[in-house]
């Protein structure tokens, strides 16, 4: 009951935030701008693929920074005290935040990608099988990368003493780890999408488990 309520609440808080507004509208717009810029330069990167790349790189970073900053701020202002003096399990607080942000960026990625598919369809006519396959691979990779980014954001939020330290750790440390799910694609492994998703799930789970373990032990 309390977990569902917290996820719903966090979703309500995040989907209207300024960062999410950028993800909802800014990412598709950025993808379109890059697409036209690349056309002018003579390159022809399909908008569908471009959307997936941009969403993963920018969306993942933004999500992890947003999560880390939100948790650090709420922790230092003692916002959680009022949750923790109620019959609420500590992991509910952490996991609800992760799920809310991840759901938001996953939907934003989906929308961005859908826009790319529509525009490509209008420009190119029917989309080739190869393009669709690569797009799905990009989507799987970007969702995995974003899951890792978000879970790292949560972990850093829990352990970091200040916003500044948290942001530095997320940008310089978190981004490196979040690139791991792209390795199967770079190595051109067959079933790269599946490997990428598995890697994303495993790393995210480890990060979240660590975050919850440390949050449970924290004296407020």
């Amino acid at each position, binding site marked *: 009951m309390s977990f569902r309520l917290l996820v719903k609440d966090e979703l309500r*808080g995040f989907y209207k935030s300024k960062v999410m507004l950028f993800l909802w509208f800014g990412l598709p717009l950025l993808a379109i701008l890059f697409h036209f810029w690349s056309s002018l330069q003579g390159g022809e990167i399909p908008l569908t693929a471009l959307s997936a790349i941009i969403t993963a790189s920018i969306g993942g970073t933004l999500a992890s920074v947003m999560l880390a900053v939100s948790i650090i701020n*709420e922790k230092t202002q003692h916002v959680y005290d009022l949750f923790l003096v109620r019959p609420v399990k500590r992991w509910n607080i952490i996991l609800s935040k992760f799920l809310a942000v991840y759901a938001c960026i996953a939907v934003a990625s989906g929308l961005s990608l859908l826009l790319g598919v529509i525009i490509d369809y209008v420009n190119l006519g029917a989309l080739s099988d190869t393009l669709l396959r690569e797009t799905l691979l990009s989507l799987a990779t970007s969702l995995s990368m974003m899951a890792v980014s978000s879970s790292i954001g949560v972990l850093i939020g829990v352990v970091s003493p200040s916003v500044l330290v948290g942001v530095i750790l997320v940008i310089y440390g978190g981004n490196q780890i979040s690139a791991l799910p792209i390795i199967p694609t770079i190595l051109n492994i067959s079933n790269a999408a599946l490997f990428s998703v598995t890697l994303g799930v495993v790393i995210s789970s480890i990060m979240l488990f660590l975050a919850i373990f440390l949050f449970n032990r924290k004296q407020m």
Partner: protein
Amino acid sequence: MKEGDGNVSVVLEGVTKRYGNFSALDNVSFTISSGDIFGYIGPNGAGKTTTIKIIVGLLSDFQGTLTIGGRQMPEGRQDIHRILGYLPQNVAFQEWRTIDQTLSTFGKLSGLSESEVEKRIPEVLDMVNLSRERHKKVSQLSGGMTQKVGLAQALLHKPRLLVLDEPLEGLDPESRYQVKQVIAEYSKSGAVVFFSSHILSDVQDIATKIGILNKGRIMQIGGLEELKSRFSIANDLEIVLSHDSGLWKKLEALKGIKGIEQPTPNKLVVHLDNKINIDDTVQDLIKELIALGCRIRRLNPISPSLDEVYLKYVQERQNV
């Protein structure tokens, strides 16, 4: 909870909390019973907030035992949290929420149903005079209003243990009066109220039991009258005369009187000896004054305030 529906007691036995070599709380023991309003006072850094955080379960690595409603902390935390209302010092909320959303979430997390939450929100907002601000964002509220929302969320689920850390801090005089009324009224339901404050006159106004903490140690516990007598602070009488015969000096020989001063013409301050029955002394004093040709217009007892008790205590500790 073992103690029935209405009654809850809070029992601390030898509670000690250390941060490295620093002892934030040292062997603190006291009991608060149902219906008590326990005022917890002490200088900055005395350990008041540490005690409160242990009671509400935010700090669990302490020595000693803490029993609330028959359940031990931290093992029985989940059960204790069902009957607990807590207002932290410098309360803060997630900034995107409105007051209504804040209270709705906390009410549901405390176990209230949707319909109970809908019924209780207007009631608690009315108690703290914030009904018109119900749909305002918490980020738009003043410090005093935020403090009142904090009190509202603590009262929302009608907790049997209400723990308030500096609840009157940052409030204007009108709001302070209002919050004190709310606390006093709430304790009549049989709940235990535990609150800390720096404003001693406020503690004096509402506390039925007072605990003085210094350097992590409980120094004194008791009702205000008990503390006053323990510190041997004299009760004084102020007497306004409509006619002063000038013979009142003879009264200093009267049993139960330690001394008499005349700060202004026609006004006497009589220092009474606490060891002698004050009622007898006052009776004798009035009779003798009239017999000496003085006419009494007014007679007021001057009782020592909690501030005086507290200062007396601090002075005694310094002398030791």
